[in-house]
């Protein structure tokens, strides 16, 4: 599988990272180098093998469905680049 410039732009958009035109080719070459490195995995026989979901056998812990935390709006907003009262400010989303 080889990544071309169109695919680099598509991945960059999916990842929400702006890529300059001048960077596209170099970035494609780097991504291809990594994909070439992982290509050997195609030769491994994985028939009948379950994909790992948890590295150690552990049962997911459950707790009572009650509020355990909260009332921290000021804390949560403390690092916001733009805020107003108890809201995060973002560019207009709905026209």
């Amino acid at each position, binding site marked *: 599988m080889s990544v071309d410039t169109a695919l680099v732009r598509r991945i960059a958009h999916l990842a*929400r990272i702006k890529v300059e035109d001048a960077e596209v080719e170099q970035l494609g070459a780097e991504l291809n180098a990594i994909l070439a490195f992982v290509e050997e995995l195609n030769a491994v026989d994985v028939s009948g093998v379950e994909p790992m979901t948890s590295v150690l056998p552990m049962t997911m812990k459950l707790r009572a469905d009650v509020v355990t935390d909260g009332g921290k709006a000021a804390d949560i907003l403390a*690092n916001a680049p733009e805020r107003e009262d108890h809201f995060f400010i973002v560019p207009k989303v709905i026209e």
Partner: protein
Amino acid sequence: MADPTHLSLAQARDALKARTLSAKELTQAHLDAIAGAKRLNCFITETPDLALSAAAGSDARLARGEARPLEGLPLGIKDLYCSKGVRTTAASRILDGFIPTYESTVSAHLLSDGAVMLGKLNLDEFAMGSSNETSAFGPVISPWRRNGDDAGIVPGGSSGGSSAAVAARLCLGATATDTGGSIRQPAAFTGTVGIKPTYGRCSRWGIVAFASSLDQAGPIARTVRDAAILLRSMAGHDPKDATSVDAPVPDYEAAIGASVKGKRIGVPREYRLDGLSGEIAALWDQGVAWLKDAGAEIVEISLPHTRHALPAYYIIAPAEASSNLARYDGVRYGLREKGRDITEMYENTRARGFGAEVRRRVMIGTYVLSAGYYDAYYVRAQKIRSLIKRDFDLAFAAGVEAVLTPATPSPAFALGEKGSADPVEMYLNDVFTVTVNMAGLPGLALPAGLASNGLPLALQLIGRPFDEETLFALAAAIETAAPKLPAPEAWWSA
């Protein structure tokens, strides 16, 4: 007392308890050492005022006979751990100005056990790197140099600030994190001891996430005993991390000096890579001989899927990273760059905020998780991860109690020497360490000698899940047998 920065953590603890040294003196000595070591660039943020006030509190407790386990001991904290009220960067521009309103669970354990935080240590951006050269705050320089050569040497990565600061005697110990080797490889490069405990041993809560199924916290220190003391304090169950394990934490220090007679140690033949340097092979043989002399039984084992671990890691880790790093969008914290609409604001923010290596990994991760490629890459890699773990399970089931390998394929290299043309060249540093993360096992790196060029070399011990005690016992046996490394000469304070 002579320079207290050269004490081990255990020695400093005992001197404080005996009141032959005060916490204030000990902290001030380290702050002076840090002030004289700016050239190493170990710290991103120094917190001398916090340290001195904590030391004063420790002296008061020591005077009252109420010392906690780490009372008055100065540590560095990797800047991936959130520190309440102290700028936390993950060595990235994208967290610009971020001041957590909470403390990570692991650092909170250390502080409530009486440790004194000296500051926040440099690292590769988001812990993605093997040389500390991807930090947005500049590379860390190792205190070690090659014989007769002034070239700046890398301290390893991603915990390069931690390893360099501990090796340069700027702190008695440090926190670190390990996703593919980020505790053990920098420890190996700097002649220090680092342990990545079993996945789930330490809480990940409040540590900036890289790849959540692989990330673990652990200490870097100058002796095996010091690492054991620190891990005991760092470990433990945390309801805020569902993957942290609810099991008692043993007194790891008690394992130091325990007999290793009759312990079955596996030596995996697949780690004898084609082109493995003669120096590394000889070091490994030497490690085998030391353990044999201590009464351990050495058996050759096979871990047949070893060679697939690194490629599979470079699918799984970037996939998880692309998901974890989606949160950096310029809305809730950190950097924001303007855009015409919200999508452009995201794209501009992330383009400016992420460095080249982070961008590369987020993009690879995005690609392998995208529609049409998910099964071919991600699911396949997770199947191979199951096979890697099964290799270890079989070896342990056959009676092997720990595995001995080299820690790295080479000693440290010079800044700019690796990975500039091809990112994969840098990735190969983790070839011996990454299997351990893939299988969730504990792994410990410790110094075992010097290369012909004068730089430290290290061995790695891999253990059964939650059997860190055996690793500490074996490591202590090797530490006793191995030649003691000299402290690096303090050229940086000139």
